[in-house]
C-alpha cells in the first residue's frame, strides 16, 4: 500500500513541480499517471523512491515513511520498488546479464558484488527473468547491441530481479513504436496480474491508459486534477487535464 500525503516538490531554481499531491494506491493496482509534458509525472515517480528529495509532505510505503529514512533503511525500501525508464537506462558497455544482475545489488553482499561475484541462485534468477521477458538468448550480448524493444525488456528483467512489490515505470514505451509499446505494456500487465505487483506507470497515450490500467491519476502543473477509473475521463475531464487547446485523438 502506497500513501502519498501533501507531497510538494520545489526544485532549487524555484520551479514548483508538485503541489500538495495526495493519493493512495492499494496493492495490486495498475495505476496510470497522465498529464502534459512538464506536469510533474517524472518528479512524482522519482520522489517515491527518493531519487529526488521531496520538499515537504509524506510518502508512506507499508508503514514505512519513505520520506524520513536514509542510508541502509532507504536502500532496503528501494530494493522492494523496481523502476523502469523511458530511455531504459542500461549500462551500454556491460553485458545484458550484468545489467540484469545489477537489479540484485540491494540484496547481495556488497563486497562480493563489487568484485563481480553473485550467488549461483541469482545467476539462475537472472536467466529466468530474461526468459520471462522473451530474450533468453541475449544474456551475453552487450547491452548496446540490442534493439529498443529488447532493451526495455532488459529493463523489466532488471526490475524483476528485485522481487519488487511495486514497479514505477516512467514512460516505459515513449521511445518505442506502437507494436512494441503494446508488447511491453502486456509484459507489465502480466507482471501486475500474475505476481500481484503494483504498477505505477506514466503514459502519454490515452488508449494505452484505457487498455492496461485499472486506475488513472492526472497531474496538471504539479496539481492532482483527476483520480479515478480510466473510462471516467470524458471530454470535460480531458480538457481539465490537458488544457483547452488539446485535441482528443486516443
Amino acid at each position: 500500500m502506497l500513501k502519498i500525503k501533501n507531497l510538494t516538490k520545489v526544485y532549487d531554481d524555484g520551479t514548483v513541480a508538485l503541489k500538495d499531491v495526495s493519493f493512495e494506491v492499494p496493492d495490486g493496482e495498475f495505476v496510470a499517471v497522465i498529464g502534459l509534458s512538464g506536469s510533474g509525472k517524472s518528479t512524482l515517480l522519482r520522489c517515491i523512491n527518493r531519487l529526488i528529495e521531496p520538499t515537504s509532505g509524506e510518502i508512506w510505503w507499508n508503514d514505512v515513511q519513505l520520506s524520513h529514512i536514509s542510508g541502509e533503511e532507504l536502500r532496503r525500501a528501494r530494493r522492494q520498488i523496481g523502476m523502469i525508464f523511458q530511455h531504459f537506462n542500461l549500462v551500454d558497455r556491460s553485458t545484458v546479464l550484468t545489467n540484469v544482475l545489477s537489479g540484485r545489488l540491494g540484496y547481495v553482499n556488497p563486497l562480493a558484488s563489487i568484485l563481480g561475484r553473485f550467488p549461483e541462485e541469482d545467476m539462475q534468477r537472472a536467466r529466468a527473468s530474461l526468459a520471462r521477458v522473451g530474450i533468453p538468448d541475449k544474456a551475453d550480448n552487450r547491452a548496446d547491441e540490442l534493439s529498443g524493444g529488447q532493451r526495455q525488456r532488459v529493463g523489466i528483467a532488471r526490475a524483476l530481479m528485485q522481487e519488487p512489490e511495486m514497479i514505477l515505470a516512467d514512460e516505459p514505451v515513449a521511445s518505442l513504436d506502437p507494436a512494441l509499446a503494446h508488447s511491453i505494456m502486456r509484459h507489465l500487465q502480466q507482471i501486475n496480474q500474475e505476481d500481484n505487483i503494483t504498477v505505477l506507470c506514466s503514459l502519454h497515450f490515452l488508449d494505452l491508459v484505457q487498455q492496461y490500467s485499472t486506475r488513472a491519476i492526472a497531474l496538471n502543473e504539479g496539481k492532482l486534477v483527476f483520480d479515478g477509473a480510466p473510462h471516467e475521463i470524458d471530454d470535460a475531464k480531458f480538457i481539465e487535464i490537458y488544457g483547452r487547446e488539446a485535441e482528443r485523438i486516443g
Partner: protein
Amino acid sequence: MSDKKKNGRPRHWWKTAVIIFVIFLLYAYGLQVTKVNLEEPLEPKRQENLVSLIRSLARPHLFDYETETRSTAVSIHMPCPEDIKASQVSIEGRSALMVPNCATTTQDRISITGDGFLPNADGLIGWRPPGADSTRRIGEFKVGPDGHLEITFTMPDIRATAEPQKLELVEIVNRRIIGLSDTTMEALDKIVETVLMALMASTIGTLISIPLSFIAARNLMQNVKAPISGIMSGVILAPIIGGLGWWLASGIVGPVLSENSTALASLQAGLSPLGFVGNFIFVIIELIILTLPLVFGLIGAFTALSVGGRFGQRMTMNLADAPNRALNIVTTVLGTAVLFIILAYSLTWINLLGIREFMPETTQAQLSMFTVPGLALGIIAGLLTLRRPARHHYPIGLLIYNITRNTFNALRSIEPLMMGFVFVVWVGLGPFAGILALTLHSVADLGKLFSEEVENIDEGPVEAVTATGANQVQSIVYAVVPQITPHYIAYIFYRWDINVRMSTIIGFVGGGGIGFVLNRTINLTAYSQASVMVIAIAVIVTVLDNISSQIRSRII
C-alpha cells in the same frame, strides 16, 4: 552614394591609427627587451662554433672503430728560415707539396696539394710536437675522386724550434666497427632508466588519481549533503581518531624500524639472493612499513568523518528542533575551533610571511595561544547556524569537490621540471626525485582528466542502479566504471607518453634518466656524445608514441 556613407558607421580612422601605433610600440619594445641581435649570429666566430656543433652532432659517437691508416710526413719550419721554400715529398706513388713550408706567426695560412692519394678517403692532419710520440690533430681533409688533394689551414700554435717539425697527412684506409661505444651503452642504460621512470610515475599516479577523480567529479559530489552537526562531529573526531591511528601504527612500526639493523636487515639479507625481484619485494615491504602511520592516520580520519556524519544524521533525524539546534551550535563551536587550530598551526609551521617570529617557541604554547581565537570564531559560526533550519543539509560534497578540483588545477599548472627541482632537494639527485615529480604531476593531470570523464557520463544508468537499492560504491562500480574505463585507459597511455617525454629532460634538474647524461655531455661540450643521447631520446619517444597511439586507437 553620399546617403550610404552617412548610414554606414563613421570610421574612426584615428582609433585605428592609435591601435597600430600601440602595436608598433609593443613590438619595438619587445625587440629591445628580448635582445634580438641579427649581427651576433653572423659573426665568423659564432658561425664557426655553430658549424662545429652541427658537425659534432652529425657524427654521433655510436660505435667504436678500428681504423687502418697510412701517413705521409711533411716537414715544416717554425719560424721561417731565410730562404722560404716549399716542401715536397713523394713516397710510394704519393706526392705532396706544401707552400710555404714554414710560418712566422701562428696565424699564417698554409696550403698543401697532393696527388696519388687514396680516392675519396677521409683523413686528418696531425702535428707531431718535437720529442713527442703522438700527433695532435690540427685539421681534416677529404681526398678527391681522382686521388688529388688540396688543403689550406691556419698554422696552429706551434713552438718555434731550430729543427724542422713534422706534419702528418693521415689517410684512413679502412675502418671497421668493433662494437658499440661506451656512450651508446650508457645511452641504452639510461633510456631503460628513463622508460622505467615514466612507467613507475604513470602507474603510481594512476593508482592515486583514480579514487581522487571520483571526489573531484561534480555530478557524484553535488548530492553529498550532511547536517552541520554531522560534518562538525566528523571534523572534531578526525584529528583524534586519525592521531590515534598514527600513534598506534608508529608504536608498532617504531620498534621494528629502530631495530632496523636486525629485523629489516635480516629481511633484506634473506631476499637478496633473489636479485632485483628480492629488492622489489623489500622496497615494497619497506614502503608499507614507512607509510603505515600515514595510512592508519588517514583511515582513522576517514572513519571519524563517516562515524561523525552518521551520528549527525541520526541525531538530526530523531531530535526535536530545539535540542537539534543546541547540538548544531555545540558541534559547530568545537569543530570550527579544531579547524582553526589545525590551520593556524600548519601556517605557523611553514612560517607563512615570517609569522614564527611573533609566535611562542613550543608547540604547546602555540596551541594554547590559538585556542581562544578558535573558540571565538567557533561561537560566531555556531550562531550563524541559526540562520538555517535545524535540519538543513549543507553541500559538503561540493566543498570537497571544489577543494580537490582546484588543487588539481593548481598542481597541473606547475611544470614537472620545477617539481623535480623541489624533489631533488628533498630526496637527492637521481631518478627517484624524477619519479616523485612526475607522479605528482600525473596525479593532478590525470585526476582532472578522469574527473571530467566522470562528469560526462550518462546519468541514466546511475539513477537506475541507485533505484535498485545499491549503495554508493556499488552504483559507482556498476554504472560509472563501465562508462569511464575506456577513457581512463586512453588517458593512462596518453600520460605515459607525456611522462616518457618529461623524464627525458627532467634530468636537467638532477632528476635522473637520460636527461642527466645529456646535460652532462652538453656541459662538457662533448657534442658527439650528446648527439647519441638526442638520437636515443628521439627514437624512444617516437617508438612509444606509436605504441601508445596504436593501443589507444584499438581501445576506443
